């Protein structure tokens, strides 16, 4: 017993007391923003001080969440406790459900027809390509596109050169950009090396979604839910089968590898992985690992189906949601911060710290003028890919309330196809059937308003 007390007392003494943040007794309006970029030091170190310097009436509070889904869960909890943050970072695959909760105020309603907020111009009409249409409905913004990304292929150029796929390490055009070219390149790579894996990408919904959009296919009926409510999923179309057949053929040939839990950093760092298809937001991380380990990192567009005309990619990543029911002055502050993020310089720095595309034209021009893209061609790929994408409902992504849940089902079904050799068409039929059930259930709880 004495020992217990000793230990407990010892711990009490050694345990550092919480740094008491005395409530700042000022009149500043607090704007809380929950985001998930814990290691992007640019946010707390540059954005926060510069925003507060420009607008001393506001106190910006950044809070790091460990992932989108968890952030949304705890946001609901915060709503239930009556103390939600003003701004929440959400993700593209969970667009409709938050709109249905009534927790958030559509951006267009909050902004109205104003052209500037607190002296910062409203740059919504500058937002580029698919990033714009993804978060719009009937041409109006519901959320603010901010961290938009698109899947691209990163390549270890030194490995590609050694395998004879590329001429030299700056020959990014040699990175395969069609389904057939991936096969050809992988054959060379696997032939050349014993212990190098050819390509890795997640068997997840996002690549599927993009593959569908690239082939001009819809994910759900009523034009992906943009021309009426979604009542049916379209996951078993020929385009879906073709994509999974391609993925499966890579797996069968031993070209596609999966490390489980996306734990590819070590393999990438050790030059044991030639190509890696992932979010363009990973550009900073990929390139830094390449520099640290002495190889050149190249990038090119997401491979498309060479037998079908390319339509376009969809954006991934996330957006920022504005809480409804705020005091007018608080809402004004939150909007000010949103517009602040869209300022060209901030857009450019956000892009540089991660690889997310600058979603505004002025942000892009700013980087262009700096010569950033000429010096960092890896970072330019995503913008090019999205610039080429058609602004049609197919590339705007599907919106229905149980989409996030269906995302989980994708993984299961795709893995079942890849690992258990399940029949592709049959698996997708089942996926569609179960997704339809979820859609039906959701529509029962939240009757869809046309």
């Amino acid at each position: 017993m004495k020992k217990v007390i000793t230990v407990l007392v010892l711990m009490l003494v050694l345990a550092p007391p919480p740094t008491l943040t005395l409530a700042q007794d000022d009149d500043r309006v607090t704007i809380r923003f929950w985001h998930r970029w814990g290691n992007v030091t640019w946010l707390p170190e540059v954005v926060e001080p510069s925003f507060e310097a420009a607008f001393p009436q506001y106190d910006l509070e950044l809070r790091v969440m460990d992932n989108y889904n968890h952030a949304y869960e705890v946001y609901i909890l915060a709503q239930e406790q009556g103390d939600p943050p003003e701004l929440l970072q959400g993700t593209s695959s969970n667009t409709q459900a938050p709109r249905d909760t009534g927790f958030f105020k559509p951006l267009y309603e909050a902004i109205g027809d104003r052209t500037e907020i607190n002296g910062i111009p409203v740059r919504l009409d500058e937002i580029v390509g698919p990033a714009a249409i993804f978060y719009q409905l009937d041409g109006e913004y519901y959320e603010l596109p901010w961290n938009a990304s698109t899947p691209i292929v990163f390549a270890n150029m030194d490995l590609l050169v050694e395998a004879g796929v590329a001429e030299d390490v700056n020959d990014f055009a040699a990175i395969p950009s069609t389904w057939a070219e991936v096969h050809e390149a992988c054959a060379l790579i696997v032939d050349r090396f014993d212990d190098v894996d050819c390509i890795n990408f997640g068997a997840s919904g996002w690549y599927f979604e993009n593959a569908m959009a690239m082939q001009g296919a819809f994910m759900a009926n009523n034009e992906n839910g943009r021309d009426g409510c979604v009542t049916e999923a379209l996951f078993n179309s020929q385009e879906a089968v073709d994509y999974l057949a391609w993925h499966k053929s890579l797996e069968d040939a031993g070209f596609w590898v999966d490390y489980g839990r996306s734990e590819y950093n070590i393999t990438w760092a050790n030059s044991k992985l030639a190509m890696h298809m992932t979010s363009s937001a990973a550009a900073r991380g990929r390139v830094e690992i390449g520099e640290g380990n002495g190889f050149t990192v190249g990038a090119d567009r997401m491979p498309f189906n060479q037998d079908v005309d390319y339509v376009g990619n969809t954006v991934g990543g996330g957006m920022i949601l504005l809480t409804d029911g705020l005091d007018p002055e608080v809402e004004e502050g939150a909007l000010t911060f949103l517009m602040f993020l869209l300022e060209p310089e901030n857009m450019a720095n956000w892009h540089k710290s991660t690889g997310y595309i600058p979603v505004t034209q002025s942000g892009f021009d700013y980087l262009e003028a700096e010569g950033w893209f000429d010096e960092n061609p890896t970072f330019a790929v995503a913008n090019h890919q999205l610039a080429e994408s058609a602004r049609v409902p197919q590339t705007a992504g599907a919106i229905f309330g149980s989409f996030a849940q269906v995302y989980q089902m994708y993984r299961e079904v795709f893995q079942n196809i890849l690992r258990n050799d399940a029949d592709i068409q049959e698996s997708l039929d089942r996926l569609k059937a179960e997704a339809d059930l979820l859609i039906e259930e959701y529509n029962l709880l939240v009757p869809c308003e046309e």
Partner: protein
Amino acid sequence: MPAVLFTCLASGLGALVVGALLRRSGSGLLGGMALGAIAGLLGSLAAMIPLKYCVLDPENHMFFELSILGQTITVNAVALIGFLLVMVVAWAFALAIDRLRHHWLARSATIWKADTAPGTFVGYDFSPWIFLAPTVVGLAVFTYYPAAQNFFLGTQLARRGVANTAFNCLDNFASLITSRLQDAHYYILSDGFIWHAENARYLAVFGNSVFFSVFIVLVANVLGIAIAVLASQKIRGATIYRTLMIWPYAVSGVVVGVVFAVLLGGGGSGFLNQSLRFLGFEPIPFLSDPWWARVSVVAAAAWNKLGFNVLIYIAALQAVPRELMEAASIDGANAWKRFLNVTIPMISPYIFFVVFLNLNYSFFDLYAVIDNLTEGGPVNATTNLVVDVIRIGVESRDIGKAAAQSIVLFIVVIGLTYMQFRVMGRRVTYGAD
């Protein structure tokens, strides 16, 4: 009208089944049948009134195909689960009524009469209630009420963030059976299937829970006993060895998951694989191959529990009387025989104790390890029942389906507890709750 027929049918069925069973255990046939009829009646009413007899509605159907001996039959999962539910509730009623009947006459008053154990304080009528109130209220509110709430939520369409809910009969349960997104297959080591069920998602998840439990218990106990035997030898520094081996018990599941992910992850370039390669072995896809991922979870969890097992087994081994061992060696038994015939029987109560603690742990407490090691993948290969509940209820925010799964989990607990009581008699165990 169909409701009345249904209730009568359940009553009749209850009479037949319970009557037959009770007759075997020595009660009269007629009495047993009467009891069964009452139980069937009450059971069907108790199960069906809250459900508004929805399973009788032909509109409520979720079909799945079942192939038995080459014949494929289509079964309505909603009706099947409804039927099973009525039978289980009726059976519980029959047991309860039978209990009451037996005990009522014999010692009807004893339940309410205070025992007369020596040493009790006299004249304090309210004190015990005050002493007990916080615990009883706490358990009622935070254990029993949510447990009961599960049954209600299991019949609802309910989503987090959506204020609206809707009654949906037994669809949440039926969807467990009818979900066909994944294949389930289990085999002994790598040669030959035991069985392979196509399109049976929940079965696959259930199988994972069983797999983890069996192998974690096996590994943690075999290694635990082996190490304990070594460490309980009369050698210099035994205490130091023991201390150096038992501490992983105090390490949290999160830390175990995170650390093992670094050791095992990274494909062919991860730490363990580089070490294997250095020793001339082929790399192993620890976290990306479904079977190796399961093995990895077992290894991590067994490592976590091993320290505790070693501690208990060392204590158990030291309690084996030396005279027994000496007697056995005089009889000419070698070390291995002595171990099998003397040591193991002597420590068997401890083995049961540890096995059941480990079993409870591996069924219910693996979430932190799995979430941080494999996130349930690949192919849901490491998704067990608890991980699935969290995935559906929290990550997908589908509360109704998660509640239905929780009830399945609850049935598993009752099964495990029943087993525990059967094997260990009345010795109730304790663990960290």
